[in-house]
């Protein structure tokens, strides 16, 4: 369709991609689009900072750590930033199998945000500007774009096309694609006790008006609630009454490419923190475990009537996996104590995050609560915990490539999509930014048009947690902030920490998200895995290896067998290869190769089963449902299926089949209809 006159399709006046917000989603969106060659404008309230961490000072963990690895494989920033600014790094779930092994880093919040802002500022394709966006500039297509000529009115298709944004100052900024990463700022409201103030997070004003503007464009918004715990002064904590949780003694990194990592930014830990490891592979500060006491629980119960979530001030649903301390005490009344982690928010800072004590109780109750915990008896609260309530735009209104279905050219990512978590936000930002860039590319070669057909980049459940996340978001309506869990991935054994690059780099290269050098590195890694697998099939473990095996903690063999056979014993790990004294079997610094070989060899039956499952479902995921298909006109669908399919607009038959309320018979009807077209 032709662009409006002010929208100068040839000139420099149009940004390829405008990103609203510079949180974790905004950062990755801007960088991804920039890497793909887009000219990107980032509009944010404070251009000096990016990827702030208003909640916990950590990155990663089960499923979240997997996401960070995927972001890294796709060329994103999060893994690099965490690697550079970590205060402590740990591998979780080490004894529970390769699929759930997950990396987590405590990071220095201030350094992380500074490094993120520098990274953004350093990219030649990115411009940052201070602005508050109050609305989108849209045009109304004469007929639904994409719909064939003569299509009846009301046939599906976007009802608007985003061509830019308007700022609070009244400035109109033209863009080929807009990525909205508003976080918790849309009509944000901070609540603790009877104090209610407008705000997106502590000390920052909310974004007002934009939410209403989206509503006027036909987008449905809903409220979500989340919370944060009090921060306390490290100098007032009795650390002798805590249990220290140290970091990993061996180097661990999110980043696949050491060259991309840059310098590790370390600091001089605040003297208040005991147990600092200064002599290891990096300076690491522990976390400190304490527990609540019955007195704490009594205090909370006695003051429940003053809790906004219980007195009716806040009605929006909060996340089940991140309940407030008051919710824990009410719901799990039988538990005598709950654990709290005291997490330093950085090296030099005395600010300590009380992980597990999310609350919106009044200040006096928060103080009394902490005082009832021995280690915190004299702790000074630097900032009380609070709840934040905000608008989001449920992502069931978006395509799986995160473009809104009603407003073409508008991409949404992060908390505004109804998720929670830095990692979830960052991963979505990357996907949205890359697709925004693809759209901009298509528009750039058609000057004068503001909407043209283009091929979005889709991620799959079978190859990434990002795919699981996006599929979950767009095939169901979630009534709580969405967080990834490894339990959400049905092919968990295939989506591992060690193979994120093998899974994703090829497609990242294909769309220009990362350079071909990464592809070569991945192929080299594949080769190393293949040759090591072949080598252990040939190498023999002999009874004479007993001493060497014993030294590594592995049992002897009574009769010679191949290394692969030996590895298949449940009490044997890949590290035994060191005992064979064979150079071909030497494990390099690349632990991923060893991990992949171990999984392939030991659990081949399981891996094969999941690979088969993926292959079985893949065919359904390849059958596309065109956006022009009028679901209402498909004869033979049950009413419920018609309603569901109309609501979620699946783009493939596979996706349709995963929508609750769609039966196999409906899927068959759909297949028949699609073939008939």
């Amino acid at each position, binding site marked *: 369709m032709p662009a409006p006159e002010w929208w100068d399709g040839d000139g420099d006046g149009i940004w390829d991609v405008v990103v609203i917000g510079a949180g974790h989603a905004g950062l990755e969106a801007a960088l991804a689009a920039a890497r793909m060659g887009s000219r990107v404008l980032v509009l944010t309230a404070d251009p000096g900072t990016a990827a702030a961490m208003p909640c916990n000072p950590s990155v990663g963990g089960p499923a979240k750590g997997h996401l960070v690895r995927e972001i890294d494989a796709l060329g994103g920033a999060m893994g690099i930033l965490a690697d550079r600014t970590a205060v402590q790094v740990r591998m979780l779930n080490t004894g529970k199998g390769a699929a759930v092994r997950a990396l987590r880093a405590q990071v220095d919040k201030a350094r992380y945000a500074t490094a993120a802002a520098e990274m953004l500022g350093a990219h030649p394709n990115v411009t940052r500007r201070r602005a508050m966006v109050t609305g989108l500039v849209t045009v109304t297509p004469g007929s639904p774009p994409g719909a064939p000529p003569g299509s009846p009115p009301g046939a599906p298709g976007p009802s608007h096309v985003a061509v830019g944004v308007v700022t609070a100052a009244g400035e109109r900024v033209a863009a080929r694609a807009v990525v909205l990463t508003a976080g918790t700022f849309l009509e944000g409201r901070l609540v603790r006790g009877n104090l209610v103030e407008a705000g997106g997070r502590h000390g920052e004003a909310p974004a007002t008006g934009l939410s209403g503007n989206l509503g006027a464009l036909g987008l449905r918004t809903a409220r979500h609630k989340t919370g944060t715990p009090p921060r306390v002064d490290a100098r007032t904590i009795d650390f002798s009454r805590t249990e220290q949780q140290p970091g990993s003694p061996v180097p661990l990194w999110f980043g696949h490419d050491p060259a991309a990592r840059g310098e590790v930014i370390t600091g001089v830990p605040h003297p208040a923190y005991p147990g600092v490891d200064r002599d290891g592979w990096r300076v690491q500060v522990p976390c400190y475990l304490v527990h609540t006491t019955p007195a704490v629980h009594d205090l909370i119960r006695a003051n429940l009537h003053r809790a906004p979530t219980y007195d009716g001030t806040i009605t929006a649903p909060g996340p089940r*996996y991140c309940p407030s301390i008051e919710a824990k005490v009410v719901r799990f009344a039988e538990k005598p104590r709950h654990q709290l*982690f005291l997490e330093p928010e950085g090296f030099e800072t005395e600010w300590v995050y009380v992980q*597990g004590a999310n609350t919106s109780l009044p200040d006096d109750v928060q103080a009394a609560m902490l005082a009832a915990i021995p280690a915190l008896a004299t702790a000074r609260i630097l900032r009380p915990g609070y709840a934040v309530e905000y608008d989001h735009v449920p992502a069931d209104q978006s395509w799986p490539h995160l473009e809104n279905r009603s407003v073409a050219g508008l991409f949404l990512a992060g908390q505004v999509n109804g998720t929670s978590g830095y990692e979830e936000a960052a991963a979505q930002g990357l996907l949205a930014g890359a697709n925004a860039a693809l759209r901009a590319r298509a528009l750039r070669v058609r000057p004068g048009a503001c909407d043209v057909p283009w091929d979005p980049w889709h991620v799959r459940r079978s190859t990434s947690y990002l795919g699981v996340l996006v599929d979950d978001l767009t095939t169901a309506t979630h009534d709580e902030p969405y967080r990834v869990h490894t339990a*959400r991935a*049905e092919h968990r054994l295939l989506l591992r920490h060690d193979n994120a690059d093998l899974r994703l780099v090829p497609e990242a290269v294909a769309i220009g998200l990362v350079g071909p050098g990464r592809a070569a590195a991945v192929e080299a890694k594949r080769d190393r895995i293949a040759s090591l697998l072949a080598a252990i099939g040939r190498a023999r473990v002999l009874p004479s290896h007993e001493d060497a095996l014993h030294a590594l903690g592995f049992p002897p063999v009574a009769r010679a067998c191949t290394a692969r056979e030996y590895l298949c014993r449940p009490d044997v790990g890949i590290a035994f290869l060191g005992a064979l004294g064979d150079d071909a079997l030497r494990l390099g610094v690349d632990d991923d190769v060893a991990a992949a070989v171990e999984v392939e060899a030991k659990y081949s039956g399981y891996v094969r089963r*999941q690979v088969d499952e993926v292959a079985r479902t893949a065919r359904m995921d390849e059958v596309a449902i065109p956006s022009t298909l009028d679901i209402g006109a498909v004869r033979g669908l049950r009413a419920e299926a018609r309603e569901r399919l109309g609501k979620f607009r699946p783009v493939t*038959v596979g996706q349709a089949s995963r929508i609750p309320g769609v039966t196999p018979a409906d899927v*068959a*009807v759909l297949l*028949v209809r699609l073939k008939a077209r």
Partner: protein
Amino acid sequence: MLRGVNLADTIAAIATAPGEGAVAMVRVSGARARVIAEATFRPTGGGALRPRRLAHGHVISPATGAVIDEAMAAWMPAPRTYTREPVLEVTCHGGRAATAAVLQAILAAGARLAEPGEFTLRAFVNGRIDLAQAEAVRDAVAAPSADAVATAVAQAAGALSRAVGAIRDPLADLAAALEASLDFADDGVPDIDRMRAGTVLRLAGEAIDDLLATAGPGRVRRHGLRVALAGATNAGKSTLFNALVGSPRAIVSDEAGTTRDTIEEVVAVGGTAIVLIDTAGWRSGPGNQAGTAERLGLERTEAALAEADAVVHVIDGTDPGMAPTGRARLATLCADPVPVVEAWTRADLTGSAPVVEAWALDAVATQGVAGGTGARPTRGVPPVIEAIRVSALTGEGIDVLRARLHALAVAGGTNPRTADRTGGEVVTNARHVAAIQRAREAITRGSEVVSAGLPDDLLAADLRASVAALGEITGETVGEDVLSRVFRTFCIGK
């Protein structure tokens, strides 16, 4: 996990019309057709099947290699086939339960039973047939059935669903505990107790074995309800049999005692297979002067009744006075109370006379369909669940009887000998059996993970597979259900 019709599977079904002559054909379609041919068909004189050449040979059990039937087989590579997929067609002796055995061998070799209309659906999806034909498929697949069958299905689904749910529940709880320990390790969620896990798996495995036993131990597992037609000589059993089967098979004459042997025929009714057994009749009246051959026939009748899941008691509608004697006779021949449908024959001769006795209809009302919520029948008294007037000549009542048999088959038409073990719910639906077997395999693997000390992520994969497979019957999806249990049970959120 995909919940739709899976077009990547290799499917199989009896392709010939019900009871068509002396041969039956089992058709297999899908990528594994060739592999299945190699596993289940041994060509005479050895060698391999050649494309599009009919070969003589034997159908063998893929597990034991034992010969099941003499047969002809043809293998056709894609795409010049009905479905445009590789197709195997095995033609075997029709009109016997052996057809079902051939099908079973093929299923055991890796095919799954085709959904109604699925061959045609594939033919359409692969561009082999046109829209008009496909519309018919769509109707077959999606048409809601409003008759009693639907009710019976719902009732049966309810009972089975409860039984499966009871097995699934502890597995889902275990899965939740395990998932919580994997996803929230740092939140103070303890690792699972592997001894307890082993016990949960063992108990679930045993419960599933009991449930699977109802699917027909050592018999037509996965494939069909056994229905015996019994009654006095010359009541019209063979005529009714032929009417139900759709072609003459049993020798019919007006002379009493014609059927000396039991005759079996596999009939597909509404997508469910039913093995119809025509039995030798008993002499009406007190006389009982049967010849030797007929006495042998009666012994076979008794054996057939003992194995039947349901009985059609055929009563001569023109001679209603004989009904009570017949019922008494049937009671002596049936060792256990199987559900009985009374077919009052020769409705064309009795006009509109109310031949069906009121008490029989009362019995229907109070007992309901077997497998449903009705009272359990008293041992020794065959429960009459319905009396239907039929006429082979005009076709009156034949469809009703067919529908009732289908309802019984789907409802898990209940042989109480096996049903006693699980409380009434019986698995006959092939898809359900397949799902339960998949759950069983996953549980077996999970038990091995526990006993071998393999890592938690593998155990989680097996638990998820078992919970998902059972959920296909109870209609629950694994992901959200397990997560809900996690958040309900564990205090998450450090």
